[in-house]
C-alpha cells in the first residue's frame, strides 16, 4: 500500500514537471523541470530494486540538464528573468497526436493480458550480475555501444568545433603556442 502511495506521488511529480517543461516561462525552469522529472523516474527505478540504473539515471540526467541549461540560454538568448515565451508551431495537431498516442498506449497497457512473472530477483548482487552479463555472455552489446559512443564524441566535436589545427598552429603548423582566443592551461 505504502509503495503505491509513494509511486503515485512520484508519478505525479514526474508527469507534472514533464508538462511544466513546455509550459513554464523561463529556460532555466524548463530545463530543471525536466531534471526533476528524471529524478522522479530514477527514484521509481529504485523502487523496482534497480539500484544502479536508478542512481545512474539521476546522476546522468542532473549533469546533462546542468549543461543543457547553458545551451538553452546560449542559443535562446534570455535574461535571467521570467520572460513570457511561446515558441510553438502546429500546436493543435501536436496536442491531438500526443493525446491519441497516449490513449493508444495506455489502452494497450491496460488491456493487453500481460504474462505472469517469470524468474525472480535473486538474492545475489544485481549490479554485479549486470556487470558480469556485460563482460560475459552479453559482451556484444558492450562491444557495439562503446564504438558508437566513441564515434559520437568524435563526430560531435568535428561538427561543433569551428577551428582546426591549421587555425590554431598556423598554415605550416609553425607556431610554438596555439593562437587561441582563450589560452589553455598547457599551451597545447
Amino acid at each position, binding site marked *: 500500500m505504502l509503495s503505491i502511495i509513494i509511486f503515485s506521488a512520484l508519478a505525479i511529480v514526474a508527469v507534472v514537471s514533464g508538462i511544466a517543461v513546455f509550459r513554464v516561462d523561463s529556460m532555466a525552469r524548463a530545463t530543471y523541470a525536466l531534471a526533476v522529472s528524471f529524478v522522479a523516474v530514477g527514484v521509481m527505478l529504485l523502487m523496482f530494486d534497480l539500484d544502479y540504473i536508478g542512481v545512474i539515471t539521476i546522476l546522468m540526467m542532473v549533469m546533462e540538464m546542468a549543461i543543457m541549461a547553458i545551451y538553452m540560454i546560449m542559443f535562446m538568448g534570455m*535574461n535571467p528573468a521570467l520572460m513570457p*515565451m511561446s515558441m510553438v508551431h502546429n500546436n493543435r495537431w501536436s496536442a491531438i497526436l500526443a493525446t491519441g498516442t497516449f490513449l493508444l498506449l495506455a489502452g494497450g497497457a491496460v488491456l493487453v493480458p500481460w504474462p505472469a512473472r517469470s524468474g525472480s530477483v535473486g538474492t545475489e548482487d544485481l549490479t554485479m550480475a549486470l556487470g558480469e552479463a556485460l563482460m560475459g555472455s552479453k559482451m556484444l552489446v558492450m562491444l557495439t555501444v562503446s564504438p558508437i559512443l566513441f564515434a559520437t564524441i568524435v563526430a560531435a566535436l568535428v561538427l561543433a568545433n569551428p577551428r582546426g589545427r591549421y587555425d590554431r598552429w598556423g598554415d605550416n603548423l609553425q607556431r610554438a603556442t596555439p593562437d587561441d582566443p582563450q589560452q589553455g592551461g598547457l599551451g597545447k
Partner: protein
Amino acid sequence: MGLRESAARRAVQVTHVLVVEVPGWGLTRMRVESELARRGWTLATSPADADVLLVCGSPGQQLDAACSQLWSQLPGPRARASVVSADDVVPTFTRLTAELLDEAAQQLDANTRSREPVSASGDSVMAQPVAHSEHGSDEHAMPMDMPTHESMDMDMDMDMDMDMPMPGGIPLASGGPDRDGLEMDVLHVPLGPVLPNWPAGLVVRCALQGDVIVHAEVGFMSAAAGSLGVGLAGAGSFRSVEDERRRAVIRLSDAAVNVLALSGWSSAAGRARRIRDDVASGTALIDVATRIESLAARVKRSLLLRWGLKGIVADAASGAQRIGYGEAQSAHARLVEWLDEAGRSARDTAHSYDPPDFPELEPKSLQLIAGLVTGTDVASARLIIASLALDTSLLAASGDVHS
C-alpha cells in the same frame, strides 16, 4: 530583549564593511583596513555582504550617487559613515558599532526603507544609477533582438513604448557575434567604482558575452571639488629619505595586495597587507625587510601562481607603455618586481633614495585601459588593471570623466 541584545553584541564583533575609496584617500582606506584587521572585522565583497558602508574621503557628485545606490543595497541592520582623515578612523568605528547595536533605530530603518527588491549590484553600481530614465542617451541605446522575430533590431531608447517585454523593467539582452563565431547575448555590466581590490573611482563599463569583455569604455568618478586627499603614498611638503622609502614600500605592497588577492591567494595577500599596515603605522623598515623578502621568496616559489598568471600581460599594442610603463610585463613579473623593490627599499640605508616609477596617470590615458581589457575575460581584466597599479589620486582634481 536580552537575547536580542546579546545576539547583536556578538554579531557586531564580526561586522563586514564595504569600503568605498574616493580617489585621493588611499591612505585613509589603508588605515581603515588595518583597523578592520585589528578588530577582526572583514572587508565585504559586495553590498549584500556588508553591514557597514564606509566612505573614505569626500566623493564627487557621481561617486556620491553611486554610494547612495550601494546604501540602498545593504540588507540591514546597516550603518553608514564617512572618514576623511586617518585620525577619524577609530572614533568612527566606535560610532558605527553603537549604531549597529541600536535596535530601535535599526528597526525604524527597516520599517521606513523600501521593501521593493533591490537592483543587483552587477548592473547598478554604475555612474548614473538613474541614467535610463533621465536621458535616453545614445550610449545606452541597445539594439534588441527578440528570439521569435528574425533580427528585429530597434533602439532601446527609453522613450519607446513600454509594451516591449521587459521583465522587472530590465530590457532583454541583445545578441552579437562572439569570438567563436556564435551569436551570443551581450550584457552591459559596469566594473567599479566599488569592487574589492579595484582602483578608486575607476569605472569600466563593459559589454560582456559570457565573461568575455567585447567592448569597454572607461569612466572616472572623482572626489568632491576642492577637497584633496593625500593619494596612495601620501604627499607632504617636506619629505625625508626615510619617508620616501616608507611611502614606496606602502605603495608597492598595496599594489601587491591587489594582485595577490585577485589571483585568489588570500593568505599571501593578507601577509602583504600586514606588511603595508605595519610600515604605515611606523614599524622600522629594517624590521619588516625580512618579512618582505620571505613573502617575495614565497611568491616566486609558487608554481601555481606563476601558472595562473601566465600570459596575463597588459599589452594590447603597448597601451601599457603609453600609460607610463616602460614595457609590457606580465602581471607575475610585475608582482615579483614590486616585492623585490619593496625589499630593497626597506633594506636600503643610503642617504639618497630614488623612488620606483609608477605611471603618471592622465585623464586621456584612462581611455587606453579600455584597449587593454577588450577581448579578455573578466578575471584577466581584473588582474591586468591591478598590475597597472593605477594611482587615481592624480586624477582626483580633474573632475568626473564620462566614457
